[in-house]
């Protein structure tokens, strides 16, 4: 089998995640979808590193994980405080961007 | 290098504007006096310019030139020819009267609306406008001119929108809404014109490589700079459009009645007597000299527009119910005459047009300021609210009549000279146009006399029966203007002597010669 299939898989997962971000209203689920996208990218990186026969791809994936962790921490904190303030975790309730 | 006189004439009011604005809010009167002194100082400087200017001398005199934006070859270039000198003098002359006439226009409203009226701001803005106008008269660098031509709009916008007549027939609310409408309209019209001009300015730079009026004219004269016909025409149109908006030419005129109607009388004078002159002046200086062939090409259309402005403006003036709007439409008609004179391409026409700018400034100032005094007394702009004023306030009525007679260009008063020159200048080249323009004479008489009859004569109305006559301050404003009107009407030679050489130059720049009279042609 050609390892390129991994890339197809990654692309698929990424797209699914993106669509999820656009469709779901629950902030937490949206976050999960973002994680999904990140993981898809990671998979792609890993596969690339295997293709090129060096570890840089894995390094990047590693860093991605770290950043993702940080992002999740902050993001969830935001969600919690948001929920505290308005008793809802829906993204659409934060629609004050419009004047 | 010598003392930068021209810069000084512009810098003094600019500094004065800042200083006036800086006067603390409590010291209202001090601000007024400061503004008056500054404007008088500018007048003195302008007088010096007038003296130092040698009519027989070089094309542009008292020139100053410094690099400004080297990247685009933009230079800070000032210089005046006879036409510019006359207009700078006019501006410097009128501002003190405007300041004096507007002495109380920016005082806080006593009763009714709680709107705080920043007196300092009013006078500072007037001075700022003066500075910008003077620079745009003196600039010989197209870009420099453009900058100030546009910047002028900002203080004017605030002057129109911020300060209106105290009383209004529909109450303060309606007044302020109409005012802001007028101000925005003024701004938008002129901005559109200005932006189109900006495009043309950039285009000019692309074609010519620099912005210096003198150099471009030079280059075009000795053939080193060649412009494709279509290019020249497009650039010409870009410039002309802006100037046609500024000097309201039919059908771009509708902002003027709103602006003049809503603004206080002194500001209205500032608009029509000073700011609009920049438009006609620029036609004479930039359109004709930069694009002589295109000007010739566009002349027929422009003449027709000018004629329409003359007749149309006069007819609408007849139809007005509002004193200030009437004067505004009268001005539109007069600007038609000015444009007619400029594009008649004869020395009489162009000298007449320049003279017309000066005289129209003075006469409109006289008429409009007296009208302002009248309105401030009765608190209404509607002609129908007046009647029999002549019996109550004879001096006011008399000065109003003189202003009106000047507007209908009665011989012996200044405007006659210029109007007749324009007519003759037009007639020698385009007889039909000349004849149509003479219609303006009759119509002018019509609207002026109707205005005078409805407001000043007839039985005294109870509302005006207690109207006081002109006060000392107001007389101080009007009397000099009247004297000036009569003097320039009887002895305009000083002005013509300054203007003629410049016009001769312009004529040669545009490769034009006066048509010869039939008899001599026969010889």
């Amino acid at each position, binding site marked *: 089998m050609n390892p390129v299939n991994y890339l197809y898989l990654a692309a698929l997962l990424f797209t699914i995640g993106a669509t999820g971000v656009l469709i779901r209203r*629950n902030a937490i*689920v949206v976050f999960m979808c973002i*994680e999904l996208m990140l*993981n898809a990218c990671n998979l792609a990186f890993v596969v690339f590193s295997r293709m*090129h026969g060096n570890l840089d791809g894995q390094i990047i994936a590693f860093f991605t994980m770290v950043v993702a962790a940080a992002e999740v921490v902050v993001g*969830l904190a935001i969600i*919690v405080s948001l929920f505290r303030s308005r008793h809802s975790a829906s993204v659409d309730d934060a629609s004050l961007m419009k004047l | 290098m010598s003392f930068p006189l021209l810069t000084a004439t512009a810098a003094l009011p600019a500094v004065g504007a800042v200083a006036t604005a800086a006067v603390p809010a409590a010291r209202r009167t001090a601000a007024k006096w400061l503004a008056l002194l500054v404007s008088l100082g500018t007048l003195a400087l302008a007088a010096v310019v007038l003296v130092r200017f040698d009519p027989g001398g070089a094309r542009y005199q008292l020139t100053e030139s410094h690099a400004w934006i080297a990247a685009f070859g933009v230079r800070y270039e000032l210089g005046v020819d006879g036409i510019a000198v006359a207009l700078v003098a006019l501006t410097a002359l009128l501002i003190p009267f405007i300041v004096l006439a507007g002495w109380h226009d920016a005082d806080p409203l006593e009763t009714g609306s709680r709107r705080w009226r920043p007196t300092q701001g009013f006078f500072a803005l007037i001075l700022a406008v003066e500075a910008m106008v003077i620079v745009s008269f003196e600039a010989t660098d197209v870009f420099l001119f453009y900058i100030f031509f546009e910047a002028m709009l900002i203080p004017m916008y605030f002057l129109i929108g911020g300060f209106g007549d105290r009383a209004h027939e529909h109450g303060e609310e309606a007044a302020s809404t109409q005012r802001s409408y007028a101000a925005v309209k003024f701004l938008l019209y002129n901005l559109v014109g200005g932006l189109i001009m900006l495009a043309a300015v950039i285009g000019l730079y692309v074609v010519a490589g620099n912005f210096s009026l003198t150099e471009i004219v030079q280059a075009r004269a000795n053939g080193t700079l060649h412009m494709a016909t279509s290019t020249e025409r497009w650039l010409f149109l870009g410039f002309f459009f802006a100037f046609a908006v500024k000097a309201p030419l039919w059908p771009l005129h509708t902002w003027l009645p709103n602006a003049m109607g809503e603004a206080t009388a002194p500001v209205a004078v500032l608009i029509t007597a000073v700011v609009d002159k920049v438009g006609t002046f620029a036609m004479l200086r930039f359109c004709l000299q930069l694009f002589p062939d295109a000007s010739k090409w566009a002349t027929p259309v422009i003449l027709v527009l000018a004629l329409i402005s003359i007749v149309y403006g006069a007819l609408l003036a007849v139809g007005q119910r509002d004193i200030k709007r009437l004067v505004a439409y009268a001005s539109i008609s007069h600007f038609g005459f000015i444009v007619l004179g400029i594009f008649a391409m004869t020395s009489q026409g162009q000298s007449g047009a320049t003279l017309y700018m000066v005289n129209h400034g003075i006469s409109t100032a006289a008429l409009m300021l007296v009208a302002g005094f009248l309105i401030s007394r009765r608190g209404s702009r509607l002609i129908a609210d007046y009647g029999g004023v002549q019996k109550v306030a004879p001096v006011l009525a008399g000065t109003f009549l003189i202003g009106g007679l000047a507007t209908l260009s009665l011989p012996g008063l200044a405007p006659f000279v210029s109007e007749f020159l324009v007519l003759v200048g037009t007639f020698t080249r385009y007889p039909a146009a000349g004849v149509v323009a003479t219609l303006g004479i009759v119509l002018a008489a019509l609207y002026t006399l109707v205005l005078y009859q409805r407001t000043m004569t007839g039985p005294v109305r109870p509302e005006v029966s207690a109207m006081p006559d002109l006060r000392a301050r107001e007389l101080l404003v009007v009397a000099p203007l009247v004297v000036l009107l009569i003097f320039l009407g009887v002895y305009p030679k000083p002005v013509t002597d300054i203007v003629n050489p410049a016009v001769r130059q312009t004529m040669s720049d545009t490769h034009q010669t006066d048509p010869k009279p039939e008899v001599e042609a026969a010889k």
Partner: protein
Amino acid sequence: MSQLAAYTTSTGEAFQFWVLGTVAVIGALCTVFMRKAVHSALCLAGTMIVLAVFYLANGAYFLGIVQIVVYTGAIMMLFLFVVMLVGVTAADSLKETIRGQRWLALLCGVGFAVLLLAGIANASLKDFTGIGRANANGNVQGLAALIFTRYVFAFEITGALLITAAVGAMVLTHRERTERARTQRELAEQRVRDGKHLPPLPAPGVYARHNAVDIAGLLPDGTPSELTVSRTLRERGQVRDVSAEALGDLKALEQRAEERLERTAVEPATSQRPEEAAK
């Protein structure tokens, strides 16, 4: 071990890919389309584990482990905590509120997928050097060597980033208590002053099937009183309404009686589940 990193992929790996890949995709889809956040979280966890396996299969042993430990262990747990905090069963309806949003989203998604796949398809990925040589002296060692030499700067920065994130999270979630906590007495006085609920809140209703703390007590006129249910439940929308239950049971009873007496069966009673009744 090492032949897993060989540059020809064995049939075993192929088999594993097809099976687990399907699982991963299904998991992802479930993450998106599950109505309850909890279920989404679980599906996601599953997907991640699958991915961890793929990492291992691709010779990224370290990452595979990290994936399991950090992601599936730490981060997903964090998610579950928050879900609990915000409400386990707070299932948001999938009904779209923004007009055309869903269709646009799907369109974009599909289009993007097509593009990516096409891109990958016609990318020239012929040369395929396996990871074997890179992993020659240990995958972890290799990574460490890179991280602490070439990528040390980025490494430090990510460290700083983590610290900042932690502090940020604390700042965001921690609310400063400015004033002294109020005593029972003060609270009571406060209630008197406001003139509401002098007695403690009414008890929830009783429903004979199970612990019914989520059932509103009925007011004399038979309408449920929200006050009797705790605020959290109220906000989660988990107050159960049993006003319909009694009728339903009655119907069921009658029906059974009729069946016994061989009467013509009237239409079967539609006894609805309480959850639907709540909706």
